[in-house]
C-alpha cells in the first residue's frame, strides 16, 4: 500500500500545493503543464459524471481506478479540490482527504494570516504537518511493492 502524490487546487483552477511520496514515473512534461492537464481531467470528469448519472448527484465524482493506481477526489463547498493518487487497494481515502483539509489546511493555511488565500502555499509548517499526517496513515507504507 502506498500513497503516490497529492494535488490541491483552488476554486479558480490553479494548483496551490503539490506533494509526492512514492512516485516512480514522472509525467515527462513541466509541472505547470501537468497541473493544467490534471485540472482539465478533473473538470471534465466532474461534468461527465453529472451528465451520465441516472439520478441526481450529491457528491458527484468520487474516485476512479486503473490497473495500477487509484485517483481519489474530494471537493469542499468552497471549490477547493484535493486529489490523491494511491495504489488500487487503498480504502476510504476520502476520509484521509477530509482530515487533511480539516486538520492541516484549515489549521495551518486558513488560520495563518501570512498565507494569502488562493495563492500557492509556501508555508513550511503546513508542509511538515501534512507530511507527518500522511505518513501516519496505515495505508502509507515506505515499502514499495
Amino acid at each position, binding site marked *: 500500500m502506498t500513497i503516490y*502524490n497529492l494535488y490541491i487546487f483552488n476554486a479558480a483552477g490553479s494548483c496551490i500545493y503539490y506533494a509526492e511520496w512514492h512516485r516512480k514515473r514522472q509525467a515527462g512534461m513541466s509541472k505547470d503543464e501537468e497541473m493544467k492537464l490534471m485540472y482539465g481531467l478533473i473538470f471534465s470528469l466532474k461534468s461527465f459524471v453529472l451528465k451520465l448519472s441516472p439520478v441526481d448527484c450529491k457528491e458527484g465524482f468520487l474516485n*476512479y481506478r486503473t490497473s495500477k*493506481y487509484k485517483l481519489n477526489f474530494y471537493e469542499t463547498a468552497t471549490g477547493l479540490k484535493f486529489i490523491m493518487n494511491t495504489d488500487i487497494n487503498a480504502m476510504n481515502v476520502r476520509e484521509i482527504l477530509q482530515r487533511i483539509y480539516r486538520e492541516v489546511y484549515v489549521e495551518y493555511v486558513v488560520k495563518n494570516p501570512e498565507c494569502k488565500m488562493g495563492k500557492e502555499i509556501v508555508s513550511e509548517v503546513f508542509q511538515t504537518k501534512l507530511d507527518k499526517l500522511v505518513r501516519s496513515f496505515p495505508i502509507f507504507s515506505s515499502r514499495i511493492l
Partner: protein
Amino acid sequence: MAVSVYIVSKAGGMIYQYDHNVVPIEYERTFTYPLDLTLDYVNSRVTVTFGEIDTIKVGHIVLAVNGNPIMGRKMSDGSDVFEVIKNKENFPISIKFGRPRLGTNEKIVLGQIFSRRKAEPHCSGIEVLEADTFKLYCYQTITGTKFIVVADPKQGGCLETYLLKKIYEVCEYFDTNLQAALEQIDKTGMTNV
C-alpha cells in the same frame, strides 16, 4: 436499478448504446406568484439554477407549463416561458420539471471522454469510476474497443466484470457481422448497429 451499456470504438466513437430500466424523473407542481425558484436559460433549456423545493433540484429543466410542452424557451403557442412566469395574471401556474436526459449527440461526446493519467509504468486506462450515484466499469479489448457498463453503486463488483466479459463474448459470437459493422462505423461514424 439502472444499467446502461456503451460500446466505444478505438477512435472514441460510440458504436452502440443501450439503457436498461431507466425511470424518468419528472415532477409537476403548482406555483403561486412570485415563483420560489430561479430559472435560467442554460444550454438551450430552461433550467433551475437556484432554490430546491421537495423533489425539484438544481439542474432540472422545465418540461411543460400548464400541460403545454415547451421547446427551448418557447411554449407551443409561441410565447416565451420567461414572459409567462413574469406575468402575475398567469398564476397560479402548474410547471412540470424533470431531470434532463441525454440526447444521442451528448452520449457520443461522453463516449470520447476517456483519457489516461499514469503514476506507475505499464498502466491501463480507467477501469472503474465511482460516483455517489453510480459506478462505471470499463473493459478494453486488445484491439482497443471499450465496453462500458454503468450500474448501481451497491452492486457487487464481480457481477459487472462478468457482464462485461459476457457482452464481449456475445460480440465475438457475431464476429463476422460485427467486424464488418465495426469497420463500416469506424469509417463513417454511424451510430446504429
